[in-house]
């Protein structure tokens, strides 16, 4: 069985079925790494991820891109292994080796068959990649050229232009404004030494979170966690990031682009992963623009008026307050109409909050859909990683539906009012409508 049964008392509004959550085991490895493990033998495979606080927010502004390239080059050469040895080694056993990278986290993840032959080989490669990367000079030169090519391409894409301008407007000088892959000018200057220095400072065992899900025993999981982290550099924890300035001035940028649609982003700093208002904001946003076809934004913009294919809002919960962002794309000629509509929708939501009926519907969806959040090894692995990395309680999944159920309309209104000020938001419009082009520079 994938899950253990855990009965939670049915609440007054939303009849909760018997909910089940995985049994999370947790310990600290001798290396100092934090480990979260769910043992499950349904499928003869193993998923492992190792996450480190080594995302793009740890870059220095003039070296933007170092964190990303450090992560990118990990599996392109390690002690005793060429990049091709690594790629071939994993492919020969059908293992999938990948990673993810964001402002907070740099992660490597492995999916392999759990037979000892495949598993041991895959873990051996992963251990060396994580702990003995080489950052070869020639490969850095090649990969820099590829990153720069991708950055140049991104500078022609309305969605990328909008995102970059938005992050800058929301975060100013804070490192969350730094593009995750760096800037063309800063990437050009990056050296092997930069990568080695960054690696030594940020790939510390003490900061590592190991998530393990699947067909191994507790004893095997302990050995795996130790194997993957025992040779990570030992360094002092880096100084904490500066705080995010929560209140930003209202701004509006209109950036010309030949695309037929305008790409519109509106937002401001939102909430941190451990914000006490996490659940009211999460549930509230579900109603506003996170709940798919039934959200207010979707209803106003798409269902009632046909103004856009996609319209959404979300909070990006990070270590420090990540962005609250609202976005859509629409034909240039109607961009101003659509922008006004989403602003009005947001303002009304913040002033009045959701209705009881909307809140009930949102709770029904989130609580009723809870089993879908943990119905595969992949999804559970991701939760393990997040719970470990952001220091969420180990009972996070057990508590989830109860926390959602406890949210009320007043809490949502209150939490939004304290976090989001519609009068002080950044707006970016790429592919701005021609009729409004002369508004360039005019404050709104």
């Amino acid at each position, binding site marked *: 069985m994938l899950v253990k049964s855990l009965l939670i008392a049915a609440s007054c509004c939303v009849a909760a*079925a018997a909910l*089940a959550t995985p049994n999370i085991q947790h310990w600290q490895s001798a290396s100092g790494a934090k480990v979260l493990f769910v043992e499950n033998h*349904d*499928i*003869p*495979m193993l998923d492992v991820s190792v996450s480190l606080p080594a995302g793009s927010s740890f870059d220095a502004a003039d070296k933007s891109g170092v964190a990303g390239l450090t992560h990118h080059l990990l599996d392109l050469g390690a002690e005793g292994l060429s990049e*091709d040895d690594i*790629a*071939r080694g994993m*492919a*020969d*056993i*059908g293992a999938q080796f990948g990673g993810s990278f964001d402002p907070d986290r740099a992660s490597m993840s492995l*999916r392999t*068959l759990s037979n000892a032959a495949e598993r041991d080989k895959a873990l051996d490669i992963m251990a060396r990649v994580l702990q003995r990367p080489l950052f070869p000079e020639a490969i850095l030169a*090649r990969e820099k*050229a*590829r990153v720069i*090519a991708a950055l140049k*391409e991104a*500078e*022609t894409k309305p969605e990328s*232009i909008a995102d*970059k301008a938005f992050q*800058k*407007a929301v975060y100013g000088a804070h490192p969350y404004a730094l593009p995750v892959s760096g800037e063309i000018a800063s990437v050009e200057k990056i050296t092997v030494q930069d990568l080695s220095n960054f690696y030594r400072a940020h790939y510390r065992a003490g900061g590592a979170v190991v998530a393990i899900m699947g067909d191994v025993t507790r004893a095997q999981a302990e050995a795996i966690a130790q194997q993957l982290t025992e040779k990570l550099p030992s360094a002092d924890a880096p100084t904490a990031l500066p705080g995010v300035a929560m209140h930003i001035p*209202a*701004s*509006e*940028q209109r*950036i*010309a*682009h*030949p*695309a*037929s*649609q305008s790409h519109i982003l509106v937002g401001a700093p939102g909430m941190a992963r451990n914000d006490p208002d996490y659940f009211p904001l999460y549930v509230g946003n579900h109603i506003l623009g996170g709940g*798919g*076809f*039934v959200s207010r934004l979707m*209803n106003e913009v798409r269902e009632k*008026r*046909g103004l856009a*294919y*996609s319209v959404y809002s979300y909070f990006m919960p990070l270590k420090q307050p990540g962005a609250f962002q609202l976005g859509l*794309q629409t034909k240039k000629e109607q961009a101003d109409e659509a922008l006004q509509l989403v602003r009005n929708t947001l303002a009304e939501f913040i002033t009045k909050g959701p209705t009881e009926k909307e809140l009930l*519907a949102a709770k*029904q*969806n989130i609580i*009723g859909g809870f*089993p*879908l959040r943990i*119905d*595969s*090894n*992949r999804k559970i692995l991701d939760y393990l990683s997040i719970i470990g990395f952001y220091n969420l309680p180990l009972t996070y999944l057990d508590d989830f539906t109860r926390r959602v159920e406890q949210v009320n309309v007043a809490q949502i209104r209150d939490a939004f009012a304290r976090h989001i000020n519609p009068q002080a938001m950044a707006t*970016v419009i790429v*592919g701005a409508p021609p009729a409004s082009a002369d508004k*360039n*520079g005019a404050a709104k």
Partner: protein
Amino acid sequence: MKAYLFCIALLLGVAQPAAQAEVFERTLANGLKVIVKEDRRAPVVVQQIWYKAGSMDERTGVTGIAHVLEHLMFKGTHTVPAGEFSKRISAAGGRENAFTSYDYTAYFQQLHKSKLPLAMELEADRMRNLNLTAADFAKEIKVVMEERRLRTDDEAHGLLNEKMMATIYQQHPYQHPVIGWMNDLESLTVGDAQAWYRRWYAPNNATLVIAGDVKADEVFALAQRHYGAIPRRALPPQRVFIEPKQAGIKRMVVKAPAELPHLVMSYHAPTLQDPAQDWKPYALQILAGVLDGNESARLNKHLVREQQVASGAGAGYDATSRGPSLFTLEATPSEGRTVDEVEAALRGEIARLVKDGVSVEELQRVKAQVVAGEVYKRDSLFYQAMQIGQMESIGLTHRAIPVMLEKLQAVTAEQVRQVAEETLQDDSLTVAVLDPQPLSGKPKAPQGVSHAR
């Protein structure tokens, strides 16, 4: 949301003969085929209904109607008002969407297993009771146009692909984009949608796939209760198009705002007709794996890492589709290199393949991934259901899935070489090039833009 899929590549991973999860099938009296995959790992279920009607069944002038109808399927029936379908699924904790391809249109919901009756009730209702109004159509066609602008008109690679397909196929309806030509979208009417719905939305033109923590017998009874009363309908014959044989290389250029050029080489290729007897489609799948199936595959290793002529390169082939298939090679030149150079490099790979074939190690590596992929597949209920629905909708059967896996394992190195030689011929090749255009003198980066406070 309401995404359309261009074509879903059946991954190299096909199914294991001794799949642990059981598959059961029954056809109702009205012709609806019901397939159940039991999988009790989690208390969830997915319902997918697949209609054998995709954009390839459209005719000139009404392209895009299959996908437009897919959008309109959320607009209500005589008893379930507009928007209510999504609200009820949402209130049941469900996730839902739909997709349209060249070959089929499918709708799905994922929910707690106790909510399957609700999902069936709603899905069965809109199979026959859709309430199409001119007002809903007028709004939704605008949404589809926005979708087209987003995915194709403003997307250089989307545009390149659309124009390439229109060049590759002279007669076959794959020449038309799934989302439809803008000019057709502008002239479509609610009557076109009504006609499409009446023509294709019938139980005897559909496959219902249910996967999850369910019992097959109970699902069959439930399906009978909800879908059983829907009358079968006479279906129009599905016209079979035989694309006239290409008689020489075709070359084309698409200019669009972008930074990097891109080159795609597409060769006509066979599809799987007889899973037990065919060998070429399997050999082509292995070939695609040798070229681009893993990080150490030839295109990445040779073109990107060693020669550094490309900043990215790939190969693709889909063995299973209703219409003809393509074997595709593509690459983006590195800075300072040209599309001619990447074409020469790709041709160099082909020449080497045809001359020297593939090594035993390469073959084993690709097969190892097929075997592992079979195990990994079991982690995704949705994907397992997809595979079944897709096979049924293109004229094969889910029973072919284990056969395909065995046949893939049996491919020899010489077969891979031979199929490369036969397939990768200039006379059946279309070369499409993206010629990147500057953003018409506008600032490329936001730095130069006034920033009002």
